[in-house]
């Protein structure tokens, strides 16, 4: 197969995986480059999807199986694209592969982690806990292989991990590798990062205990999360009975993200519902500017409204402080429907933080046109290059999947047009 029939997908999250699979299953040769040590992206971190409240893992599992069964897909984890040159039909791409220090013999037996003396902050759980420096990113990680975080595994840490492994799966001499590829088409699927909630200093994140982000809430609720699926507030491990959801925490705010992040309303409503499902005594208050539940998602909103223990309060929270001498959190807002300014105490506050395209912090390896907020402008991409999902605008998983399929088709057409 020549270069013209190959597609490179940069990013192995939901949109990238979808694009890669649809293209490969239509006959193209596809290479996925993912910078994390696992595939699945943000979706892998979610506890439940909206609106059906089903776990994302089953959908991911199906995709991972499709990858395993398809000989036309290859993927690289810990891979970053450092250079792209050429044009449609003849892109030259350089991939930097960071060492995993664990080879294919790994059986995910956990012996290395048990023996590992050092720890690292668990970025998969948004810093809610720590893992050993030799770790499996999460229980269903694909590929099912451990990773050693070299920056945390210093001194004799590596040796101890290696000694614990009876399969000779740990190779401390692994070096970064460079891979040069020639492909006919490129799909950018870098996805999104959560906006840094600590930048809103009036919302208390990072200063007030028990103020968490929406993604941390997902991890707290997930069975493979730091609390094994029990929602416990990080400050003292108590199950929160009163939880406030602060909408537009950074989004629709020209001091932060001037755009609407699209998913946060649905995410908070979903979280309020599963909080109530897990703990029937719990109460949720959602403070919002507008509840944006586009299209049929309105039905979901109606369902939430039926629950008397979920209060929807129109008014943005602009002050969050620690209650003196307590782990509780004081939230100030105005209920604009009644015109009364409220000061309420909650056990935990969830900030509905927004989406930032990954290209904001890490632009693509060739000059492209971006909006001021770092989103890719698809119309201005070079021929043979496509962007999917949240790189173009904030969107939900359903739309990402549709977009991924669309991009697969476009890149197939691009390849076909050149042969």
């Amino acid at each position, binding site marked *: 197969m020549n270069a013209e029939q190959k597609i490179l997908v940069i990013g192995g999250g939901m949109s990238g995986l979808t694009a890669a699979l649809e293209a490969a299953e239509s006959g193209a040769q596809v290479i996925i480059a993912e910078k994390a040590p696992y595939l699945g992206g943000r979706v892998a971190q979610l506890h439940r999807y909206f609106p059906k409240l089903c776990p994302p893992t089953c959908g991911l599992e199906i995709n991972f199986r499709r990858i395993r069964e398809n000989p036309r897909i290859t993927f690289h984890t810990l891979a970053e694209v450092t250079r792209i040159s050429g044009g449609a039909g003849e892109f030259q791409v350089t991939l930097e592969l960071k060492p995993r220090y664990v080879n294919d013999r790994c059986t995910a037996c956990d012996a290395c982690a048990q023996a590992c003396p050092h720890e690292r902050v668990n970025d998969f759980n948004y810093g809610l806990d720590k893992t050993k420096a030799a770790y499996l990113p999460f229980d269903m990680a694909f590929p099912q292989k451990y990773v050693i975080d070299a920056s945390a595994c210093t001194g004799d840490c590596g040796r101890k991990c290696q000694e614990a492994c009876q399969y000779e799966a740990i190779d401390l001499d692994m070096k970064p590798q460079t891979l040069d590829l020639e492909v006919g088409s490129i799909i950018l699927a870098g996805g999104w990062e959560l906006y840094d909630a600590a930048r809103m200093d*009036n919302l208390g994140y990072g200063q007030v205990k028990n103020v968490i982000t929406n993604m941390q809430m997902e991890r707290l609720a997930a069975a493979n999360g730091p609390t094994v699926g029990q929602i416990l507030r990080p400050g003292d491990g108590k199950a929160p009975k009163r939880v406030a959801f602060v909408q537009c925490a950074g989004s629709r705010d020209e001091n932060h993200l001037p755009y609407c992040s699209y998913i946060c309303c649905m995410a908070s409503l979903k979280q309020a519902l599963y909080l109530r499902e897990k703990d029937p005594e719990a109460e949720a208050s959602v403070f919002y*500017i507008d509840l944006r539940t586009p299209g049929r998602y309105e039905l979901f909103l109606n369902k939430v409204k039926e629950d008397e223990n979920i209060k929807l309060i129109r008014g*943005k929270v602009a002050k969050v402080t620690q209650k003196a001498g307590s782990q509780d959190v004081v939230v100030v*807002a*105005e209920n604009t429907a009644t015109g009364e*300014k409220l000061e309420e105490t909650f056990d935990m506050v969830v900030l509905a933080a927004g989406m930032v395209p990954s290209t904001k912090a890490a632009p693509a390896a060739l000059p492209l046109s971006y909006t001021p907020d770092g989103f890719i402008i698809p119309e201005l991409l070079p021929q043979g290059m496509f962007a999917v999902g949240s790189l173009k605008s904030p969107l939900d998983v359903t739309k990402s999947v549709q977009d991924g399929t669309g991009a697969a088709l476009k890149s197939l057409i691009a390849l076909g047009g050149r042969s």
Partner: protein
Amino acid sequence: MADETFIKPDLSFVKRIMAAGGDTAKKCYQCDTCSVVCNLTPTSQPFPRKEMLQAQWGLKEVVKSPDIWLCHQCSDCTVLCPRGAKPGEVLGVLRQMCIEQYAFPSFLAGKVGDPKWLPLLIAFPVLLLLFVLNIFGLMRIPEGTIQYSKLFPTLLVDVIFMGAAAFAVFVFVNGVRQYWKDLNVNPWKVKVEGNLVRDLIATLKDIISHNRFRQCETTFARSLNHLLVFFGFVFLAVVTALAFYREWFEAHDAVTNVYLAMKLLAIPGTAALLYGIYGIYQERLKNADKAGAGTYFDWLFIFVVAAVGVTGLFSWVFRLIGIKMLAYPTYFIHLVSVFFLFFYAPYSKMAHMVYRTVAMLYARMAKRGF
């Protein structure tokens, strides 16, 4: 519907707000960050969110709202506003319009806030004073030691300036009467429960201590600068009163207690005024990005106060070092500035001291946020 409310939007009102420096009003999307971060608002029906809505919708009644005067333009709202709608600036413009609303005669009211009328507004005291000099045959640099009464005899100064002050007081009394009447009818009709005298004393205490102004976060320094300007004015007002007393009831060259008190107050008064107004100027420039650059109405007032202080100081300095050619013209400009400050007080930001006091008194009596 029984509780149907008809609103009467006034587009020209919205346009005037925007022209006067509230051009950001329409950006507001009512998220309510402003009312939440405001340290000065009452908790019930807080400002400035509702005022932003009223401004956008052209509901003119908002200029009569006492709430706009409870705002000290800390700009904490403006800093955190997610839309750059600058509620602090918009409320400033609404206060300007309140001043215009209650000023008499109404044709003069709009002119002070409009830069294109500035030359004419300055020309009035200049021509008036020149005219007076001319008819009394005093249009020259006087001979001998510098003594400002050689240029403007004291009686003349008293007549002109007491006339200007009396005019301003008359306009203020008229405006306040109407304002107080409007405050005590719907839609702000809150049963006024307080005691006029007791609450007036409490309000004056609030003003003297600046205890509300000092709750500002972003522009906290401004509250201290304002305090300096305020006490500068108080001191200089006392100095003026003492000078008046001395002029009419004491021998001019005798060193009396009144004379000493006058001199002792004049120097710190001038210093406080100048230092404070310089601080206000600096703070405004420093905060312009996050808190808004301020309107023409604001800046005019700052410059007039600064002009009064600076020309006053230099009249003194030039007199002491004996440079006639500078001393008398500076004194002339000083008189023009003071006249400008007093005569246009009911139409300029100077009027805030009157309307804000009234609104604070009303709010205290109505138990609104106090």
